[in-house]
């Protein structure tokens, strides 16, 4: 089997063994997102107005929890330095780690967001837009959080520093993501913010793994 494919499969397998990490992120997402419909009641207009920011903010909080575990365990048990010493491209191996992290941390959020959106009285095409926005923005967030996690690997208590790196970088996604959802619900053409989100996602996937691999080499020094 190709080494990159092998890395992906192994990472998924390890994540499944560390299932409580995955679950914590999903629970966080559901808790934050569901509290509004539960407390506000059936005020449809209000719920429709806030669903965008709420969804994206919950995704951000979820990734803040799960990002601690992208590289840290492997850094501590030494398998990350073995990865850095392989003669395969570290960028490629890190891309595989990020992809598997995406599959285990973001994909569940996308699935769950379908059900959460219906509690906000979002239906039809707008439901699709909500799900697509969560998909695009959480995919970008995965890359940003991987970078933030890699940069703070050698810091003993990295929580605050990670947050400081993550928040400013994720603000554009929060803003444009909320706009995409708002426009589609109100009935305005939302392709503008969508193009932006897609562009951000492509950019983060093309540059993210390279920057992350570089940050890992620095952290191992």
């Amino acid at each position, binding site marked *: 089997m190709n080494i990159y494919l092998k890395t992906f499969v192994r990472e998924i397998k390890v994540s499944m063994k560390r299932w409580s990490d995955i679950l914590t992120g999903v629970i966080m997402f559901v808790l934050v997102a569901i509290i509004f419909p539960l407390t506000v009641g059936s005020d449809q207009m209000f719920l429709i107005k806030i669903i965008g920011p709420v969804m994206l903010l919950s995704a951000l909080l979820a990734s803040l929890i799960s990002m601690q575990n992208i590289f840290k365990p492997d850094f501590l*048990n030494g*398998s990350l*330095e073995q990865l850095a*010493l*392989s*003669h395969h491209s570290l960028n490629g191996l890190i891309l595989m780690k990020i992809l598997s992290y995406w599959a285990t941390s973001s994909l569940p959020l996308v699935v769950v967001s379908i059900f959460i959106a219906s509690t906000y009285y979002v239906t039809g095409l707008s439901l699709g837009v909500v799900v697509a926005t969560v998909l695009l923005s959480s995919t970008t967030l995965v890359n940003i959080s991987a970078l933030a996690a890699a940069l703070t690997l050698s810091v003993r208590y990295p929580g605050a520093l990670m947050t400081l790196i993550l928040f400013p970088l994720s603000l554009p996604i929060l803003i444009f993501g909320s706009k995409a959802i708002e426009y589609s619900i109100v009935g305005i053409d939302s392709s503008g913010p969508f193009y932006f989100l897609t562009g951000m996602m492509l950019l983060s996937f093309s540059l993210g793994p390279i920057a992350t691999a570089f940050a890992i080499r620095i952290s191992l*020094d």
Partner: protein
Amino acid sequence: MNRNFLQLDSLELYREDHLIFTDISFQIESGDHMVIRGVNGSGKTSLIRTICGLTQADKGKVLWNGASIDESLFNYYEQLSYLGHKNGLIPELTLDENLDYGIGQIDKDGQDQVIDGFRLGDLRESLIQNLSNGESRKTALSRVVSSKKPLWVLDEPYANLDSNSINYLNNRIGDHISTGGIVITSTNRDDSITTKTTELLLGS
């Protein structure tokens, strides 16, 4: 195996203004087993990490077959098998799963032999987190010892091992250097390492 050689050219390393080592130069070649000896805190691990390119030296160069490793890192890593203080094993996976993920070129038959040699045969399906320190260490050593790469760099390989395993490891190192390999190990003890051909004393 081709003849290879590794050169260190006046290496110097500082950590937060604190001198770790200075002016380390040597050359070793195929057939050599260099033992880096020194008390705790004398910079053995730092030196080993510098040799592997994990740590950047402040001055000096590491050269593999005459070329600086910074310029041909992937080329160098194709030849290098390293084991640090940490075993580099994933505790949630079994011994076999960990060893199957061969980042280096590993020959399967050779690996089975090494696993038997270290008497790990019965533990192949056990999770690494359920193994003892010595057993995990031997698993990690198996990965290096069964790799076909010419340069082995081992940080404190003898720690935590019983005497049978030390003998076995010595045999494998002996085989490796007699077929043209290069081995670098570190130790903080004085006991004679039978396969040693040259020694570097740190921090005296």
